[in-house]
């Protein structure tokens, strides 16, 4: 059963069919939510809410990229969490990242302890850099540079034009570059990476 048939069955109210879509996209949705929110619990809540909204609104899907459609719902759920969080908490998102000692990054059995630590450092630095971006720029750079969506998919997921995606991504990358250059000592081999890139 291809994706369109699954979507059609889900539109008829078939929960099992929709759960097939959940299995296919929950990894992506959760990681987007985590990079958007920087917190595992809130990322899970946003992801669950996104799939619940997706099931309720599956009738409004009229073709196109389902990935972009479900990512749009996910990012909107993340925006809602961020808005509600701003009203309640005073802890900056950077502190939440720093407190995350029990990272859920996929473990590689062949990975050495040194490599694991470096990867944790990279994750923390990248998350801290993302936290410095405005929400709209953060979303674009996550979808483009972390998850590899093209401009068209990003435009569909964020409901903006291609030109807006282009400008937002450019500004987001420039800020990320500045942050990483300023914190290159925190990057495992990041300094060498930047130096090698510049030399080449």
């Amino acid at each position, binding site marked *: 059963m291809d994706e369109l048939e699954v979507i059609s069955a889900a539109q008829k109210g078939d*929960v099992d069919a929709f759960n097939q879509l959940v299995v296919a996209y929950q990894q992506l949705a959760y990681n987007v939510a985590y990079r958007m929110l920087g917190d595992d619990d809130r990322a899970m809540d946003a992801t669950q809410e996104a799939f619940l909204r997706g099931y309720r609104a599956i009738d409004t899907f009229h073709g196109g990229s389902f990935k972009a459609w479900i990512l749009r719902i996910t990012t909107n759920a993340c925006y809602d969490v961020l808005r509600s969080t701003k009203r309640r908490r005073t802890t900056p998102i950077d502190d939440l990242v720093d407190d995350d000692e029990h990272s859920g990054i996929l473990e590689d059995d062949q990975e050495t302890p040194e490599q694991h630590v470096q990867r944790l450092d990279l994750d923390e630095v990248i998350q801290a850099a993302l936290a410095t971006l405005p929400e709209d720029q953060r979303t674009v750079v996550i979808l483009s540079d972390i998850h590899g969506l093209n401009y068209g998919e990003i435009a569909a997921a964020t409901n903006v034009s291609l030109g807006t995606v282009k400008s937002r991504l450019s500004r987001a990358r420039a800020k990320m570059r500045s942050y990483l250059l300023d914190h290159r000592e925190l990057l495992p081999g990041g300094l060498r990476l930047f130096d090698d890139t510049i030399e080449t």
Partner: protein
Amino acid sequence: MQNLGPHRGYHASEDDLSAYLDGELGPRQAKRLERHLRECGTCQRELAELRATRLLLRGVPQRPVPRSFLLPASVADARRRQRAWNAGFVVLRGAAVAVSLALVVLLSGNALLRRGLLPVPGQAGQTAAATALEEPLAVQSQAAAAEEIMPTPSSAVLAAGAQDEQGVLARARAVLPSATAAMEAASLGENAEAAQELAAAEEPTQVRGSPLDHEGPLTALVQEPRPAQPTADGVDGVFSAAAKVGDSDGLTATPNTYGAVPETGVTLELTPMVTALASTPEPTPTSTPAATEPELDVEPLAAEPLVRPTAGDEAPSGLVAAVAPTVAASAEAGEASSASAQEQVPVVPVATPIDTWQQGFHAATGVLVGVLLMVVAGLVWTDHMRRR
């Protein structure tokens, strides 16, 4: 994109460098950028930093999902309920729009009706009926007005001989054409009927002031015609008789010199009555300046009609000057008679189309506002339920 030709101090924009990095720049723009990059070390360095940044981001590892996000089967029931609430919400929303529009139309229509920009339904037919009903009254008024405009001695005598109260008024007006004309100008034909009512209402006054019998002075005159007995002071007799008529009619100053010249015959007929009246002691409680007039035989009786101080002081020589108060008195009498007519004639309220429309408008407005409030409450409730 800025000048991407040979490097002359210009550099490529960040947008173009970022898009070039992603392969999203057009072929011609990409070639121009490549030419510029060959000559501009600054843009080369910036592009390299952007590429390194993107490589770092692409190298961020994916996090495993901490738990499953599969939906339970119960969400299907919740979805059905939500659809039902959604349908109810849509229906109520449409109802709210419809009721609101109806309310707007109703209020607009009422405003237009009040301003006369819209005809009231059914008003044309009832207006014609009302006109048909009013026509006979208008004819009567016109007839009365014609009689008043051309008073003749004969008509005055006939009017005086009539036994109904309408004759009293007609005769009084005939005695004083100018006064009646003025009264006509003041109250037009409507006073014809009103004067009748007034005369009927003041019947006891006439009886009180008459020493003859209890049938009233004018009735006594007709029923007991007396031979003409010319008197030396015919004018006084006329004045007295006319004064009596005026008194009984409420037109207190109608007796004056006007009646003396053209109505000599009438004066002759009235003289005996006046004499009789004068011979009867009148228990008038008040004495006025007119009552002391030595030239009048009807001094006791004259005290009643000439009780008005402004005219009584000058009578009889000042009778002409008393015409003005006569007019005022006539107007007052007309108003009093109108008020009396309004009190005595039962008024049957007739609902006009405007009244009917206003009643319907108020009822419909109340109903619509009530329905709208209920619909809005339903909307709020269904919206709350469908969002749960």
